[in-house]
């Protein structure tokens, strides 16, 4: 089982769209995939038409009494299940602290899933907290959608330094440009000549595209309704690139 976490300190950078589309493409490739919607806003759950609700709330996830599997819901797609969000996830930081050994908690939670799933995609909430640290310990690959702007690059640098400072050597950082608007000169400039930040940026970028925004109306992954559009093709190329990279890990 390989665990991908889609993460950025910043919000609104395309984390959920990436998680949903990557999870869908991984499942289309024959892998059994679980996407865990960790964002209390529940956007990934919404895209899959699944109620963002967990029985027993976030505390139930960590109480060691109920198996994580009982919260899992099947999506409408082959090989793809979802662990829904819950608004109480906003308290996950506190709950992790109370439960003890917070940094290793997510790894422990995910371990039993290895029997049923080949791939887990964690759609993380923005910010950097105890929860993020626990996720960094559980994940194998950190997908970092980054808008090609100065501030976003600065944030990316912070994540790279954090990994180094905390000796998270197991964690492969895979930053890529997201919501790229080629009409903007700065976007063009950064995408064409990305600065050296200490982690290579993926060759594929995700464009700013109305087809991706339409996910909110369609409530399904881009490739199910616009697979041949620029964004759909970009997601396919990106998943193949991520897969190649993570296989050589």
């Amino acid at each position, binding site marked *: 089982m390989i665990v991908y976490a889609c993460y950025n300190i910043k919000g609104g950078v395309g984390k959920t769209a990436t998680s949903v589309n990557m999870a869908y493409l991984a499942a289309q490739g*024959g892998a*059994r995939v679980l996407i865990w919607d960790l964002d209390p806003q529940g956007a990934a759950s919404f895209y899959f*038409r699944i109620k963002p609700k967990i029985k027993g709330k976030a505390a139930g996830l960590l109480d060691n009494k109920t198996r994580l599997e009982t919260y899992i819901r*099947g999506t409408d797609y*082959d090989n793809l299940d979802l662990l829904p969000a819950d608004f109480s996830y906003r308290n996950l930081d506190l709950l992790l602290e109370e439960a003890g050994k917070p940094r290793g908690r997510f790894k422990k939670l995910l371990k039993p899933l290895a029997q049923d799933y080949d791939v887990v995609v964690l759609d993380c909430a923005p910010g950097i907290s105890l929860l993020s640290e626990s996720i960094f310990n559980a994940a194998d690959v950190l997908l970092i959608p980054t808008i090609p702007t100065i501030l976003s690059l600065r944030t990316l640098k912070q994540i790279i330094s954090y990994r180094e400072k905390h000796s998270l050597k197991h964690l492969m950082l895979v930053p890529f440009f997201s919501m790229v608007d080629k009409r903007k000169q700065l976007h063009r400039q950064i995408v064409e000549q990305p600065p050296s930040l200490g982690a290579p940026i993926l060759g594929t970028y995700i464009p700013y595209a109305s087809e991706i925004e339409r996910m909110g109306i369609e409530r399904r992954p881009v490739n199910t309704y616009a697979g041949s559009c620029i964004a759909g093709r970009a997601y396919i190329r990106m998943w193949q690139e991520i*897969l190649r990279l993570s*296989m050589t890990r």
Partner: protein
Amino acid sequence: MNKVVELSLPQNIRIDELGNELASHFSLEHDGITSVSRTYLDSFDWRLYRKRLLLFAETSSEGVRLILRSQGQPDTQRVLNIDSIPVFTSDISSFVFRNRLEPVLRIRALIPQLVIQSRVKCLLAVDADNKTLLYIQFENPRLALSNGQYRMLGKRIRLIPVKGYTRPAEQILRYLKKNYKFSLIGKDELDQGLELLNVEPAKYSAKLKYRLKPDMTASEALRTILLKLLEAMKLNEPGVIDDIDTEFLHDFRVAVRKTRSALSQSRHILPDSEVEAFMREFGWMGTVTGPARDMHVYLLKFNGYQAALPEDIRPALVPLREFLVRKKGKEHERLVKGLQSSRYKKLTGAWRQFLDTPQTETKSSAISKKPIKELADKQIWKVYRRVIHEGRNIRADSPDTELHRLRISCKKLRYLIEFFEDLYPRSRIRSLLESLKQLQDVLGDYHDYYIQIIALDHIKKQMSDAAELSIETGEAIDMLMDVLRTEQQDLRKQFKGSFRAFALKKNQANIESIFGQPGKGKKGGKGAA
């Protein structure tokens, strides 16, 4: 209810009517009717079935889906959209499927074992967000027979709850139980089909299956073994001719070789004059099948050949592969001619008749009436001592021919133990077989290198004669031969350790206690080199 439930419908129930009844009662959505064909795939020797895996390709107007799951556990399935039904695992694009199938199937091809055709009527239970909660499928599947006929499997309804949504399935199941008489189908469709065909899966195994008893006469036991070997040849013959995968020819050749080995090591049990003629003919079989097998081996090793060279040299080896593929094609044609010749048909026909006719043994000596255990003990002990003797005489500078002789003796010993393993406690011969296998691996690989180096040199000349050898390819083959020579020499260094492990004093004492005869033949049983 989180699992798939399949219920058998009485034949008088009309699927359409029941579908409409459920749809209106539970506000279900109609999801159309699809014609599907499910092709169950497995290797000739049912490797997936043995590992409790099910693989099938489902073909419909929407395309082909490859489905892999554990037997009896439909909820564990993995689905992959594919363009065409794969033959080898390397044909499958998904790394997840390959990772699961490759360790089981290895180089064996996937063969369509069973085809089920059906029209699937589907209903869906959806919620207010249009999220599917349950799939309901109605089917009346039929099993396609090889003669173009069909056998019906019986009408059925399948409830497939989406994970985490149990209620709709529970409600419908309650309704069905209350209003109709259904029985639960507790078997996979593949098992139902095999049962209808009266086919026992996993019957074929490269390992021979028969029962020997210690007091069987030598003649009776030998005939049992030889008949099984003939059966193995015949079972593999169509796969060899159709060139389905390389294991057919491998298993066929092993059966021929074992037949020759059994005959050469059991003199006088069967009438000598007739056996001699058959030995000659089985020798001919070896030569008919050998060149094609050589090509299989080189092609199977080709990726390893490329990997052994520096990356920039590897492309230069591609013409060698192309040459081998063409040569394999020609050798296969020759092999098929051999297997379809009257000489081959005459040989196998006469051989079966000879083995089936007990009176032929009247011509043979009293040895054929002896209990098999007595003769097996004697022969295994004799060959074991020969192996020890030959192995002890091998020095660092001994010629390759001596290692080759030892390899042949080890092979004879291995075959003997395998022929008669029924007669001995498995726990006692296990360690002998394991250390023998390790020794054989070293000797076998050493010999393979020797043969490959000679063959590559020969192929290089053939390519040159056919004006198909560029300077780069010639240099790449030379480099490859150098690599193989180095690896061969490394193996030679390993020989001493492997032989020492095989010939440990405590092992020898154990072997002697199993096969040895008191007061006889102790001289070879001394300590190892």
